[in-house]
């Protein structure tokens, strides 16, 4: 077959969010890969500047549909640092508990998606069924399945009762048992291993050079984890291992995520056992004093960074979000070098991408295609009328009618 360029996305069954990959193929072999983001820009950073800090907590929670708690915690930590708030210990423990439960739900979701991408739908059905257990626990603790709304500036909004912690412990046991079964599947099932091992290889040096984060980096034996390197919330008081792997491929990433699940269960047990007594929040001022802070957080997908600058008013002056996928997306082109088309979905899925969180683009530069220019409101209006007129749709009559009606 001669060379063809096939588009994957913005609408494609392999992708759960709109983004576009142009793949140059020769037969089944991938010659060139280029990614284009920007279909999902929602202007969240700007929206944050227009709202008060307390509203922003709920807005940042909606950056991601899966690691929602990560973004809101990251934002809240930055604001608390600027305002120099002493967050009660119990609040930190509850935050960490929800964070680890979220990691469990995210990694189980990933395993199912990975199974689906390699055509192993049975794994998808099984993991997503078991994921319901942790979703129910999250709904019981916070009232919601995805956007928990548990964070507030200065603490958390809901306390955890002894009955609830018993339920969580029970669910953790069930999940641990199921995860052991999935580890067995991932390490024993031949067709699955054939599709995962040796695919999407990212060497240790490349992972560091391209700035990979999270499980993607740890599977290339880059020993990096914010939870241990720069402890936040209650992580400083927990005992856990940072899981790394030297397979450097999708199989390694699977093992890292499964290992992290097991670590998460042990962390949840420690949190429940050592949960201190006390208040769950301190009162935060409505106006945050001037200052700036960078906050780091180990989301299920990797390191999440928020930058917040305040000017002493009740609204932040600038909020900047760097989602983990932005750090990882560059590695995909490297992983796909000389691979086959069939490996494309699983290699993209292996970084656990979340494109909606990543989209911070406002201008797309295409070299040599068009010049960037600033358009005023009137220009834009004329441009749209011209655009429709070119296609044989004329609003002139309608416009007159509208003006008459308005008069």
């Amino acid at each position, binding site marked *: *077959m001669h060379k*063809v360029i*096939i588009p994957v996305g913005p609408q*494609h*069954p*392999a992708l759960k969010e709109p983004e576009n990959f142009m793949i140059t*193929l020769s*037969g*089944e072999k991938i010659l060139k890969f280029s990614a284009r983001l920007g279909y999902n820009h929602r202007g969240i950073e700007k929206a944050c500047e227009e709202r008060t800090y307390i509203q922003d907590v709920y807005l940042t929670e909606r950056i991601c549909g899966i690691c929602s708690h990560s973004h809101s915690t990251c934002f809240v930590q930055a604001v608390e640092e600027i305002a120099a708030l002493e967050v009660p210990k119990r609040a930190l423990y509850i935050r960490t508990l929800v964070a680890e439960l979220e990691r469990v739900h995210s990694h189980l979701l990933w395993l199912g998606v990975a*199974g*689906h*991408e*390699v*055509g*192993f*739908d*049975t*794994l998808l*059905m*099984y993991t997503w*069924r078991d994921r319901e257990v942790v979703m129910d626990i999250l709904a019981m603790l916070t009232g919601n399945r995805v956007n928990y709304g548990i964070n507030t500036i200065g603490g958390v909004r809901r306390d955890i009762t002894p009955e609830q912690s018993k339920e969580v412990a029970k669910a953790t046991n069930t999940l641990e048992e199921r995860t052991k079964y999935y580890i067995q599947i991932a390490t024993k*099932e031949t*067709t*699955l291993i*054939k*599709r995962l091992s040796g695919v999407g290889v990212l060497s240790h040096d490349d992972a560091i050079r391209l700035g990979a984060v999270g499980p993607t980096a740890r599977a290339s034996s880059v020993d990096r984890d914010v939870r241990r390197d720069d402890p936040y919330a209650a992580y400083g008081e927990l005992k856990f291992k940072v899981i790394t792997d030297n397979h450097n491929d999708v199989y390694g990433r699977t093992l890292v995520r499964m290992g992290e699940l097991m670590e998460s269960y042990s962390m949840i047990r420690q949190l429940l056992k050592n949960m201190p007594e006390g208040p769950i929040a301190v009162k935060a001022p409505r106006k945050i004093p001037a200052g700036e802070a960078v906050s780091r957080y180990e989301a299920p997908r990797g390191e999440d960074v928020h930058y917040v600058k305040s000017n002493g008013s009740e609204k932040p002056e600038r909020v900047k979000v760097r989602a983990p996928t932005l750090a990882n997306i560059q590695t995909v082109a490297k992983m796909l070098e000389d691979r*086959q*088309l*069939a*490996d*494309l*979905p699983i290699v993209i899925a292996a970084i656990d991408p979340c494109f909606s969180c990543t989209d911070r683009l406002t201008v797309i530069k295409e070299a040599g295609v068009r010049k960037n220019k600033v358009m005023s409101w009137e220009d834009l209006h004329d441009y749209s009328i011209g655009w429709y007129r070119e296609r044989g749709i004329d609003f002139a009559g309608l416009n007159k009618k509208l003006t008459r009606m308005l008069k």
Partner: protein
Amino acid sequence: MLIALFNILIFPGFIFLTLFGWIAEYIDRKLCARLQNRMGPPWFQPFADFVKLVSKEEIIPEEANPTMFKLMPVLALTATVTAFFYIPLWGKSALFAFNGDLIVVLYLLTIPTLTYFLGGWYSTSLYSKIGAVRSLTQLFAYEVPLLLSILAPALLANTWSLSEMAAFYGTHHWYWLFNLLGFAISIIALLGKLEKVPFDIPEAETEIVAGTFTEYSGRLLGLFRLSIDIEAIVGSALLAAVFMPFGLGLPPVVGFALFILKVLFIICLLSILRTVFARLRIDQMMTFCWKYVSPFAFLQLLINLVLKGIIVK
């Protein structure tokens, strides 16, 4: 004349095959769903799907060749239905039989794959073209083991006719036990032929949307899906006739029930297999078929050659 028409159109022809195909699809989907811990569809789902597709608009791509695009589903359907007439069902003889009908059945069962290729190629979409090339590549991988594994029992029976094979195994009751290895191989090959997991490479949805069928819609897609259902029945019936030739020549009702059971057994086997595996890559599938499946098919052939020299004289 009237009886021939009845045979072709109603029983055991088109209508019977359609109904049985839908029932088999339902059983396949329900079993797969239960194995995956899902509810699965209601019993009339395949029929409802067909009615929905038939009542929908047909969209033919501007660039596509309309004649070829429309012809392919019909060709696939007729080829599979025709193949069914040469397979002995519960009697010792098929509806039509001549010496060499074994090859004709295998040939007719190859036509659907060719129509997937041509249909995909003529719809000119990139996804369809890649799917089309993949289905043809896959054909070369599974067709050889399938032919070899079906040839082995024929060799033992010393005939090229399916009906004569049935007659041979009818008189030599336990000889079918020699062909169990061939049965396993032909089940694997049938998975490839029906494009099911782990060999659903030509229609891998996460890579190339729906492969060959990406551009097909409405009635044409309905016919394609019907022909896949019927192909599953015909393929299973062929395997049942060749590898499970016991209980032939029973009274009609009991024999018919046994035939249905045999076919459903193979359908269930296929759907269990498609539940427990991940999809292979096309190169892995080629290696698997040529490195492991084909040699075992040759081994079966060798076993039957030796047996023929020793026992059957």
